[in-house]
């Protein structure tokens, strides 16, 4: 048997069903991070039109200030809020807050760091992101 026969690679790593909400948060953190980096690059390019004069700026606004543009911006708001809230949870976890006290590993080897508080924080991050998206929609479409 070859050493790598049982290896699932990225597909196995990406499977959110096997490891619960923590794995889901892990992937959501990375996907939102990449999305926000892409948005940052696009936003820097988009705003650079200001130096080309008023007509160039208004041309750019006519592309971005549309229904599709507002829906996209709402998604960016959601990504940003989730990434921030979950990032603060991860930072606190790395700092040793909320991960439980070290103890002898006994059967059934429940990891103290994957406790209900962290799970609750992940659900709260998703909830806050949804609320922020709703607020964003009301601001963008409520004019």
């Amino acid at each position: 048997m070859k050493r790598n026969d049982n290896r699932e690679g990225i597909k196995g790593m990406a499977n959110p069903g096997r490891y619960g909400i923590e794995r889901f948060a892990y992937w959501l953190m990375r996907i939102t991070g990449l999305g926000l980096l892409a948005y940052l690059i696009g936003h820097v390019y988009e705003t650079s039109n200001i130096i080309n004069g008023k007509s160039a700026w208004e041309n750019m606004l006519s592309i971005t200030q549309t229904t599709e543009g507002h829906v996209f911006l709402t998604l960016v708001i959601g990504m940003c809020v989730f990434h921030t809230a979950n990032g603060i949870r991860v930072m606190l976890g790395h700092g040793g807050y909320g991960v439980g006290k070290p103890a002898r590993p006994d059967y059934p080897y429940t990891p103290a760091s994957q406790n209900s508080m962290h799970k609750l924080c992940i659900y709260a991050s998703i909830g806050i992101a949804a609320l922020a998206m709703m607020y964003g929609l009301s601001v963008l479409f409520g004019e």
Partner: protein
Amino acid sequence: MRESTIMKIHYATALGAVVLVAVHVLFRITMGSFSGSLEYEQVLANYKFVPYAVMLELILVLLSVHGFNGLRVILLELKQGRSYEKAVTYGCIAGMTCLVAFGSRTILMASMGMT
């Protein structure tokens, strides 16, 4: 640089960016309507207000460092190897430098009225 130091920079840039981006977004939604805050004259006036331009520059640097270091971490999680890791690190530094240079050019030119 040690990986632990890089992660401290990653977290510090994140916290700084959260505060400054919140101010940046508040500027858009508290100055009348959202679409009104995007009018050419309004945006240009924002750039010419020096403290705001400095804040934009800080946001650009903080988010570029945080974003490209995050990309580096994701790419290093997927694959490892001496030459691959070097290529990813230098590629991310190059990307970050280009983005900061391009964004700074816009901020400088707009704040100096070179439009």
